[in-house]
């Protein structure tokens, strides 16, 4: 049994430290998701299929989460349907009260954590060293927060180190990058529609979550009490267990953030190539493997210790330079409009221009 001083910091405030940490990372995740949504919305016009693909991944995970909610509440699943535009899960038994609330919780929170959890599982095989739980000396708020941060920091550092030294000629590493990109494009619960909609905003998600939590304050109170009970128990056994639970959620958020960040260069590249003439659009994408393989071949004859890192840098720089050069010299005709002007009509029936 652990020995701890009985003061308000230890008994009450310290319990909030990991919750605060998870909330901060989750908010960060929301912001990065929001940026990704904006980027995808900009791409939607020219890359309908790509956006549909990302929608499909997002909707797929969202539907999986809802199905998981029905499974956990033992409602059963009578039908499961996922399409590019919507996902639909119907329970065998319609349960109300706390079960309904749990299902909704899965639906609202699941898409943020479940895909990230899957990536976390995969990444354990690649960066096993980064997974370290905190070991506390004092059971205070600051100590708990420091322990929480240390665990996440170790994990993040290892993850980034792995990414910097990634060997793209190793099929396992390439596979992991694809998994990251795949999940990174899908770790968002919202749909990217043709027009800018309110429901793809961060505020919309947050309002939904707030309404959901405040709808049944009693349930929320029960959860808080259960967590607090768990904290008190862990104080007697090992407070690191309590923090460790939230560290896992923190890792999930961090994984999601890294995965989302990795998709940014890809989205930016796609966006940048829109300014290039169609027949030249493919060149920046070809430059990626060609420059990397070329660099690796070059370093076979001129060996260096930083082989993977330098090759990666060469790949990034070549792609950026080639894209910039193509934008400058092979720019597409900007006057071409996707919407035919003759189709644009104003309400009074006269011809008009599109208003943006």
């Amino acid at each position, binding site marked *: 049994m652990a020995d701890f001083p009985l003061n308000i910091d230890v008994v009450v405030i310290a319990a909030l430290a990991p919750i605060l940490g998870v909330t901060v990372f989750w908010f960060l995740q929301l912001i990065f998701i929001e940026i990704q949504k904006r980027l995808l919305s900009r791409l939607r016009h020219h890359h309908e299929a790509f956006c549909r693909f990302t929608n499909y991944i997002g909707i797929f995970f969202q539907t999986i989460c809802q199905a998981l909610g029905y499974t956990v509440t033992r409602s059963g699943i009578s039908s499961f349907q996922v399409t*590019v535009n919507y996902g639909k899960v119907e329970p065998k038994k319609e349960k109300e009260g706390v079960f309904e609330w749990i299902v909704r919780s899965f639906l609202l929170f699941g898409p943020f954590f479940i895909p990230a959890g899957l990536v976390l599982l995969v990444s354990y095989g690649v960066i096993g060293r980064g997974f370290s739980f905190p070991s506390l000396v004092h059971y205070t708020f600051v100590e708990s927060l420091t322990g929480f941060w240390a665990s996440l920091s170790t994990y993040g550092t290892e993850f980034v180190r792995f990414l910097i030294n990634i060997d793209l000629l190793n099929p396992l590493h390439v596979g992991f990058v694809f998994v990251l990109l795949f999940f990174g494009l899908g770790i968002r619960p919202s749909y990217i529609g043709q027009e800018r909609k309110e429901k793809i905003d961060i505020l919309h998600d947050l309002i939904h979550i707030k309404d959901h939590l405040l709808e049944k304050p009693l349930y929320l109170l029960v959860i808080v009490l259960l967590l607090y009970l768990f904290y008190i128990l862990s104080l007697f056994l090992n407070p690191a267990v309590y923090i460790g639970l939230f560290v896992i959620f923190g890792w999930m958020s961090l994984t999601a953030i890294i995965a989302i960040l990795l998709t940014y260069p890809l989205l930016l590249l796609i966006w940048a190539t829109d300014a290039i003439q169609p027949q030249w659009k493919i060149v920046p994408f070809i430059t990626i493997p060609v420059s990397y393989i070329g660099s690796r071949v070059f370093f076979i004859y001129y060996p260096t210790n930083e082989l993977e890192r330098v090759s990666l840098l060469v790949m990034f720089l070549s792609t950026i330079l080639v894209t910039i050069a193509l934008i400058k010299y092979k720019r597409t005709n900007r006057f071409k409009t996707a919407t035919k002007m003759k189709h644009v009509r104003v309400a009074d029936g006269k011809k008009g221009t599109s208003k943006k």
Partner: protein
Amino acid sequence: MVKKELLKNEQVERILSPHPLSFMKLQTLCIFVIVWGIVVWWLTEFSEYAGMFSGNTWYPLILWGLVLLLVGVIASLVAIQWTIFFLYLGVFLSAIGLIFWQHWQNDIPLFIFIYSIAVSIVGFLIVELYRRSHKYVITNLRIIFKGGIFTKRERTIRYDKIADIDAKQGVLGQIFGFGTIIPVSQSGFGLGSDKTMAAGGVAVGGTKARLFGFAGGGKEVQTPIARSYYELHGVYPYKDVKQLVEDLVQSHVPTQYQQEQVEFQKQQVDIQTQMRDLLHKQVSDKPRKKMVRQPVEEEEEPEEEEAVERVPRKKMVPPEEGFQSEQVDIQQQMKDLLKKQKTARVNPPEEEEVEEEEAEEETEENEKGKEGS
């Protein structure tokens, strides 16, 4: 499409071919070969497990071949198409043959890498060639399906012969906007069956006593299924094409009212034919005496009966003899037919009804007149 192939009054609505990604199942087979080839090369040459394969030069080939065939078996069972297994078997055997022929036993990992890429490229080219051999022509009268690399196949289906339309869109189809439409004909062309079978065996015992158990089960499901050259496979844009086909089918399917009208016309034609025969009989049975032409006004025929050969407008009636019993029978039969004609009508217009009644009355008067004479 060659204009000669079109029928009279036929117009081409749309010429389609499958979307480049619509044959993804076949392309996936090629992708697997290329990926597995690269993995084996990396595994046996560069990975930390490379030492495991240094004992025997044939180990990489065995690993490569075993996994290839295993995946072939699984894919064949899932897709219910054993061609996949034999395709992979062919690739594997060709690799062995090439190694022995060219004496590449010492460079097997590199050979597997290059061979996999080469085979995959050839595979992709064949799939692309196969895709391009497909052509679907949607005209205002029918759908023409064409396909096949060596053996050219063609199917034509008229819209009025389409009993059902099956449409499906996979995940890739939803993303890229293509899908497959199977028009099922009234004869059932376009329907197939999926048959799955599971079996397992177990052997228990040593050298002397052995038990062997075998359990199996099968399930057959009737489902819309057709070869890619007998369906609108992976057509783009799916929704537009589906709408077009459905509209065309709808425009060629007779409505309930039209069907009733056609049935009614058939009955009318039958009645008219019988009446004509009776009139012929009446005329041919007359006695060879001095005849007086007596005009007999027949009932007016409905408009739809114009196509039927018109009966003689005048009858030859013997002036003084009166009707024989046969003639009476014929008249009676004609009367019955007229009644039948009247009752067979489906919502006849009022004017026609009046005319018919008048015609009937006239016939009756004629009969009376003839009887009196």
